[in-house]
């Protein structure tokens, strides 16, 4: 069985995986990082969004062997400067940007990727960056507001 070596949240990991295994399965089942959620089976919902080398990717549509040598970041790796919540997470709390919370890790990771590449996004840019993430609870307005708030906090 092939071995995949990569880092998750800065920590090196080495896992034996069948070629067909998905990154999200390895994260959830092998590494017990259950913050990355699975909301669909067609890479539509974005609940499984993680960062691979800083870019957002759907872990349900990524083969684990394909991240060999790369850096994977998940919701569990986010931290604020004081060790508490990351500013994006904090903004979601402050703006009521989550209800059931199931889509939230993916939303937060997509927002982090956006703000890393574009620290002062317009509303259109925020909406565009979230088009691969579905939420059924909030109606999105507070999620967009959360990203806006986080962008402001980072200025």
């Amino acid at each position, binding site marked *: 069985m092939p071995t995949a070596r990569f880092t998750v949240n800065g920590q090196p990991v080495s896992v034996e995986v*069948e070629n*067909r*295994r998905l990154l999200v399965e390895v994260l*959830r*089942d092998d590494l017990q*990082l*259950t*913050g*990355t*959620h*699975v*909301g*669909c*089976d*067609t890479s*539509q*919902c974005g*609940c499984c969004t993680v960062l691979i080398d800083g870019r957002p990717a759907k872990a349900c549509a990524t083969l684990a062997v394909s991240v060999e040598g790369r850096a994977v970041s*998940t*919701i*569990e790796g*986010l931290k604020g400067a004081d060790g508490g*919540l990351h500013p994006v*997470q904090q903004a*979601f*709390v*402050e703006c*009521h940007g*989550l*209800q*059931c*919370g*199931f*889509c*939230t*890790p993916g939303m*937060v990771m997509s927002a982090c990727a956006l703000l890393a590449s574009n620290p002062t996004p317009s*509303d259109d840019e*925020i*909406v565009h960056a*979230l*088009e691969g*993430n*579905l*939420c*059924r*609870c*909030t*109606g*999105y*307005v*507070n*999620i*967009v507001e959360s990203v806006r708030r986080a962008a402001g906090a980072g200025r």
Partner: protein
Amino acid sequence: MSAAPPVAARFGSGHSVRRIEDPTLVSGTGRYVDDVSIAGQLHVVLLRSPHAHARIASIDASAARAMPGVVAVYTGADLKAGGVSPLPTPCPFPRPDGTPSKSAPMWPLAVDTVRFVGEGVAAIVAETRDAARDARDAVVVDYEDLPAVVTIEGALAQGAPLVWPEAGDNWVAKAAHGDAAKAADAFAKAAHVVALDLVNQRLAAVAMEPRGVLAYPDADTGKLTLRLSSQMPSGARDTIAAALGLKKDDARVVVGDVGGGFGMKTGAYQEDVVVGFCAKALGRPVKWAAERGDEFLAGRPGRDIVSRAELALDAQGRVLALRVRTDANVGAYATTTAVAIQLLIGPWVATSIYDIPVIDFDLRAVMTHTAPLGAYRGAGRPEAIYVIERLMDAAARRMKLDPAELRLRNMIRPEQMPYRNPMAQTYDTGNFPSIARQGLALADWDGFPARAAASKARGKLRGLGLATFLEWTGGNQFEERVTVDVSADGFIEIYTATQAMGQGIATSYAQLAVDVFGVPIERVRIVQGDTDRGQGFGSAGSRSLFTGGSAVRVASQRTVDEAKALAADALEASVKDIEYAAGSFSIVGTDRRIDLFELAGRQPAKRLYVDSTSSVSGATWPNGCHVCEVEVDPDTGEVEVVSYASVNDVGRVVNPMIVVGQLDGGAVQGLGQALCERIVYDPESGQLLTGTLSDYALPRADLVRRFRTELDQSVPSINNPLGVKGVGELGTIGATPCAVNAVVDALVRAGVPAGRAEAMQMPLLPETVWRALHGA
């Protein structure tokens, strides 16, 4: 030195306290059903029927059983032989011929016959999910394909294939309400009559977390525990236990974080019983995690009715009578929930906030070879409110009246409260004209022509849509049991059998506890989701806050009252001299006091424990005025929601942030029905054509950019001690009709004949709108 403000002034009810649920959920450390695993657990996947209707001639699982990692394969026959019973399909309504309601028995796995695409046929249990999936492909089922009926029309046609031959036809049930003769008189003498054919299409709830089950037997006690993603743990437990032949107390349902429910996670599902059976039979933990495809195929959808609706009005626009003929497609197996939603619950609010003297409703439920229906956010009320609000707009158009003016002329006046509607439902409070006027003002109703002109200058057709409405909440289950446990370690733990699914129950209940106890909110822990700790109806029908929250208030007060006697003993004073404030008991007029938690520590059990059951006195009737503006692109038919304003009466508000979140999020679901969502089956083969999120269009972040949402707290409910009204479904109910009314309005203003614009059916996809615009 001034005293710090009491905590109740900052964290009690009425304040937008940040949710205590959130730090866990934003960190990815929530515990949704598939996040929990038990060492040695097996995995189960279901083989589902590829046919809408077929006889199962044989199932050969021998090759699958021989595959690596496979532990067992079970069929419907195996479950039946193992003592499993069908899930209940009773229904209190008679059929049109007066005989009792009929439905095929809903076996957890199909026995002999499959009746919808996606019905479970076999369960494959293996050491890993991949092994189970691989083995699923090796199960050979010999089906004898049979003709299927998919649509209501098809089901009622002469000689239609029968879903349940013992019924003799495809009728499930029928209900008639009102007075047909009086209605006929009213229509005969009416100055104006409007009639519309309206479809409320089938919708999927699409909670982002798919369902799942982790079942494990306790070797010592024989008790079967099931972790579920459920809104109604107790009801699920009772149904699962009955189907498995267990006593209720021999099953336990545990619920962790729930990733959305919206009504579809209310009852027990076939898979719950299947997984419970596997765990019991194998004596090992067994897990099933639904994939999204499982949810589209077999998660219970909602709506799916067709209505012919007519309104009779006098010359001044006063409604004389409402006549509705509705047929509901309840799928292959008739659940009580699905039938009651359309035959009873929807009709309760069909006359809405209007003083309509006469009704004539004839409502029928029909079986088809499609997935069985259940509850979806609003459950009957969105359908009914859609019907009356579409009729109101059509009537105003015929009479050349402002649609707001026509509605105001018909509204129940505050002095008519309490008001008993023609369905014998009594509205306790409400000031509908006031809410409507506030909503119209917030939306700048009168300023619309200028905005329409500006849109026109940009090449867009602008439309204005209104919905003024109410809804019924509570499931008619008003009693709740709450336990309060004040422990010496400084925490107040409150257990409730209502169930969070994202609505922020823990925060709202904690605020109510802070109101009574006056301790910091961090001292309060709200615990839910364990049938061994308490049972109740659960969370559905927007009932949690007004029933469960009221029970928390009562239980908290009982705790303080009972503790006063203990404090009196501790302080060697008379009970009547003891007062309680901000976490401590004191003797009035002295500085002698004892802390609440210290008092708990002095008790023999090192705690104060109160088991409290209380009831509210009736349903609540939240209501609102929602105004939507759209722009239609005449070249493409695309609809853009450019403005959404609402004023809502949900009684007193515990947490405004949470309440507005419920309204806005709910509204987007309602807009989804209006503009993009629908479940589609191939009408001939019964194949599901919307089986993924690529085919079923959910609203995305670009649908609405801004809500203006206001709350009027001046009209509290008098049916519960908090004065609150349910809020979970209100936004969904209002959004659908006001958005559709706006699109119809845009087209009519653009010169499209009213009949053609009004004939559009949801969802108002670009093609639908374009065809109406261009007569194509």
